[in-house]
């Protein structure tokens, strides 16, 4: 292998691992957000959440 091939392999593996990490965190975020929304739609509230505060969804 040439030196360039080693450099390419190192950058390629790094890009793959970091991309996978980012996508995994994004999927986790989206799934939790969806669960929270479902629970709120069913009228479940957290204890610390005042009765009249209405919708307090994750994020926006």
């Amino acid at each position, binding site marked *: *292998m040439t*030196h*360039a091939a*080693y*450099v390419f*392999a*190192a*950058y390629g*593996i*790094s890009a793959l*691992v*970091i991309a996978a*990490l*980012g996508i*995994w*965190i*994004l999927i*986790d*975020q989206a799934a*939790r*957000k969806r*669960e*929270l929304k479902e*629970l709120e739609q*069913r009228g*479940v*509230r*957290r*204890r610390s959440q*005042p009765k009249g*505060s209405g919708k*307090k969804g*994750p*994020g*926006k």
Partner: protein
Amino acid sequence: MGSGMTDATPQASTLSGRLTALANPTRFLALADRLVPWLGAVALVILAVGLYTAFAAPEDYQQGATVRIMYIHVPFAWLAMFCYSLMAIAALGTLVWKHPLADVALKAAAPIGAAFTALALLTGSIWGKPMWGTWWVWDARLTSVFVLFLMYLGIIALTRAMDDPGRSARAAAILTLVGFINIPIIKFSVDWWNTLHQPASVFRLDGPTIHPSLLWPLLICALGFTLLFLTLHLMAMRAEIWRRRVIAMRRLSARAAERAAR
């Protein structure tokens, strides 16, 4: 935005007041929502600049083109130790101050730290083959970083072993603090033992020994990857807080259903 942001308390202007305010997960979520897009964007811009300058920089007179691996290998190794140090501080936050977000920070950081440690090992190995003539040697630096990787895996397993996050928090914090002994061992392994891995060339008492033309791109890349790490950590913490809310709300609704059935 959550309602937690609207009630400005008088002590919020002092530093301790601000730290206390941050202990409120709702306030933390609001802060993370505002920070993540900016932090992520700045990280990507700095990384782009860093990698561009890294490939524009001259090749090393001994290593040739393989010196380019250094621009990612060194930041990954630095993040492997930075992340663990951050987790050790979070462990203290759990054990000493009982900060409600400390365990969230520790648990969310572990997989990210493990990924960067694995990358430090992999990129180092890929550099080692053409430069040392071997993918791997069991010298003190490589072995201690491999131990760090195993520590990360252990902490990941422990933080996810129990359904109740409150119960695993203490165990994970203690394991993290015990494992922190490895961080100075990694840092000084190249001085204490005769290693194939080269000694420090950036953070030295007598100043860096890398030529500025190679050092600057390295520092920019390190900053970019650090900001990327912080962005990912904030996102993972946010997801973890939401996960715990879902668990708490499910428990509440199950209890309410039980009461209604009686």
